[in-house]
């Protein structure tokens, strides 16, 4: 009895202390931030120095512009390297960078680039046509095993008629070649020749040059004072790796970071407009979807797949998963992708879904599984899908797996018959913003695992033909109709549950200007300026 009393006393004391503690905590948060924002309103926000710090969730994996996979590596790379062409801010149009202009022959085989003059690499080497050729040769050399090699798989020859002209001839037409050139940073030919370790050293023509790189922690670049274009306003940029979202937000609040990305939707309201902070967003080129394995019953029936699309409330999805910051998916690819064409939505309609299921012979629904990785966002998404499908009698067992394990499990099946996957909750963004990149890996019949990510095991000869046609066409109006047709066919076949398209959101201090995020989640800080 005595012991029980003691325990009781201890527990209640603990509870009271905990409550007091949390009450104090939240009280001071509110008053503190109000006071700060009042102070901010009276004086214009200023930075304490001219060095910008960007806190981001992932680390930069490589500095080699020909061997990049992560978006963060791309962001860091674009501060030090430039490409022949680049995307504008909205990722809609391709604009000149190291090439002044370019022409494509009528047969789509010869690309002629006229280069900028008076550009130098940070090691003093001149930028010219030979430099471009040296870079292409480096990529094409099989021994180097670089990721950019595939951009040049169809190249027949590269010629340099004069110092400012590069002529690239292809073996067969490849309409997205131009898009690939926006992702092909040009390295100093001298650095290539000297065998500089390019995965940790950068020698480019960009507005910044490398100061220091600690792979797990930070990358610092300083202004390139010999830059040929408009020089940035800041002295330096530090890309700092801060994996924990709460810590990133704290850094933005204390001023240790001037910009943070990404930012969880549920935190936006608490920081937007406080302490010189604003939260900005741009439409992304990411689509969220669930693949339905069409080689499995009951997903082999188009009525079942369409019924499932009707059973999902997309408004509720955007609210539940993106905290309201996003849109419905209105095509198999995001609205920011080249040649996007809007489709008629599968409007949320339970009755219609039930009717279609009945017609397909599943009046009481069925049992299945849904896979994804084990991040809290993915689990939330899968649970949402399961709840929605439950309304029409479908039970989708939620199976979260660690990312690399999931990847291995999907790819262990050598063909459709061996495949174990039913549904996969996942997202995709094309790395060079083109329609082929958005569709081929996911819908082309030869891209079923283990070749690539067509986990719907979707195979439609008409779509295969359209995608091949997309690569061989050169005229934009023709490409528009080819890709519109492909999107429409896929949409009607419904190999996916088409869900949503989030926005890219980042937190930034009011005193930062000319820093933008692109639809693919990369950062453009070429002209970054701080008021100080």
């Amino acid at each position, binding site marked *: 009895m005595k012991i029980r009393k003691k325990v009781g006393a201890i527990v209640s004391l603990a509870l009271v202390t905990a409550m007091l503690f949390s009450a104090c905590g939240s009280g001071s948060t509110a008053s503190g931030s109000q006071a700060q924002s009042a102070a901010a309103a009276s004086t214009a926000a200023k930075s304490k120095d001219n060095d910008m710090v960007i806190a981001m969730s992932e680390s930069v994996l490589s500095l080699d512009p020909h061997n990049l996979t992560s978006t963060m590596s791309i962001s860091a790379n674009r501060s030090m390297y430039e490409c022949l062409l680049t995307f504008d801010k909205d990722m809609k149009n391709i604009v000149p960078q190291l090439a002044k202009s370019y022409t494509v022959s009528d047969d789509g085989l010869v690309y002629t680039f006229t280069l900028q003059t008076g550009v130098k690499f940070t090691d003093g080497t001149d930028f010219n046509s030979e430099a471009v050729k040296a870079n292409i040769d480096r990529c094409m050399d099989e021994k180097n095993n670089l*990721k950019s090699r595939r951009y040049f798989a169809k190249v027949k020859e590269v010629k340099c008629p004069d110092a400012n002209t590069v002529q690239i001839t292809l073996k067969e037409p490849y309409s997205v070649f131009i898009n690939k050139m926006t992702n092909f940073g040009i390295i100093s030919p001298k650095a290539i020749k000297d065998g500089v370790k390019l995965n*940790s050293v950068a020698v480019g023509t960009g507005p910044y040059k490398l100061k220091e790189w600690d792979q797990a922690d930070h990358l610092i670049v300083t202004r390139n004072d010999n830059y040929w274009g408009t020089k940035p306003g800041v002295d330096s940029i530090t890309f700092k790796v801060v994996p*924990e979202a709460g*810590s990133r937000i704290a850094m933005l609040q204390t001023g240790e970071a001037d910009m943070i990305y990404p930012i969880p939707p549920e935190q936006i309201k608490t920081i937007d407009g406080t302490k010189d902070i604003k939260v900005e967003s741009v439409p992304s080129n990411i689509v969220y979807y669930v693949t339905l394995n069409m080689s499995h019953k009951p997903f082999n029936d188009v009525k079942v797949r369409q019924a499932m699309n009707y059973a999902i409330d997309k408004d509720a999805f955007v609210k539940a998963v993106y905290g309201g910051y996003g849109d419905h998916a209105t095509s198999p690819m995001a609205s920011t992708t080249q040649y996007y064409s809007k489709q008629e939505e599968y409007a949320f309609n339970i009755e219609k879904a039930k009717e279609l299921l009945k017609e397909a012979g599943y009046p009481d629904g069925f049992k299945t599984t849904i896979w994804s990785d084990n991040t809290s966002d993915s689990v939330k998404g899968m649970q949402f899908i399961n709840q929605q499908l439950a309304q029409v009698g479908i039970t989708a067992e939620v199976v979260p797996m660690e990312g*690399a394990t999931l990847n291995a499990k999907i790819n262990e099946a050598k063909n459709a018959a061996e495949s174990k996957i039913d549904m996969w909750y996942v997202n995709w963004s094309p790395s060079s913003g083109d329609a082929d990149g958005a569709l081929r890996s996911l819908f082309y019949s030869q891209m079923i695992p283990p070749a690539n990510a067509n986990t719907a095991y979707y195979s439609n000869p008409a779509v295969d033909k359209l995608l091949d046609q997309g690569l061989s066409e050169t005229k934009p109006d023709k490409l528009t109709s080819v890709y519109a047709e492909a999107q429409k066919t896929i949409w009607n076949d419904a190999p996916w549950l088409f869900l949503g398209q989030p926005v890219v959101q980042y937190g930034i201090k009011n005193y930062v200007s000319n820093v933008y995020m692109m639809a693919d989640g990369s950062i453009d800080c070429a002209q970054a300026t701080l008021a100080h």
Partner: protein
Amino acid sequence: MGRYCLKRVLGTIPLMLVISFIIFMFVHMIPGDPARIMAGKDATLEEINRTRQTLGLDQPLLNQYFMYLNRMFHGDLGTSTTTGQSVAEMIGPRFQPTFTLAGCALVWSLIIGVLLGVFSAVMRGKWEDYIGMLIAISGISIPVFWLGLVLIQIFSVQLGWLPTGGLDSIQSYILPSLSLGVGVMAVMARFSRSSMLENMREDYVRTARAKGQKESMVVLKHAFRNSLIEVVTVAGLQIGGLLAGSILVETVFTIPGMGRLLVDSIKFRDYPVIEAELLLFSLQFVVINLIVDLLYGVLNPKIRYES
């Protein structure tokens, strides 16, 4: 004593070999394909296979193990598959922050924990005892992750006294070592309290008191010294816990240490880095246990004479 030490030290060599084998096999047997991860999402099968060859992952597993062992004996820990840097180069700078952090956390938590435990034992049943054990229970129950974020919110964002993370100054060690040490402090307090209470009931304590010795001498010289064996054992085990905790603390406080490197390398299935790190963690654990064993000998003459 010399022979006792030598025997203990030599015993660790076969142990490390067995550990290296287990680590290697486990790491290679967890599902996930580094070649596929490295080649990227758009990669073709041909590219993936070429990457697999470059990484040497197409060889039989046992061959890979002997190659790995051979490299290790030549002092080469391999090359990271993610960054292409040498593993030693990557781990070197990560070691010091984790080590310093664990050290700071251990020192304060041991001192405070043991003091709190002894104090509670002496004050047994009084309100001071309840307060002491309340602190200990809270310490065990509070998740490190949450505590870290709360500390950042209070001391960095609201008060502006300390930085949110990084290891640029001595101040930046304060919050992380505080979060990391709380659990250990709590466990030490609980253990030293119960061990003290047990010893205080022993005959020799009664004898000491009967001799008319001062109460402070009875507590410190007799009861405390005998409690130390148990305290040292538990402290040794706690260091393993500290290393595990460092993974969370380094993530919250943005410290580029071993813990964070381990998480990243597992995500990318960067085999050479995972193996090297696990081996280092095991080595640390083995060394700590060795020290604990040797300390037993110092604290209790019976142990060193028997062996």
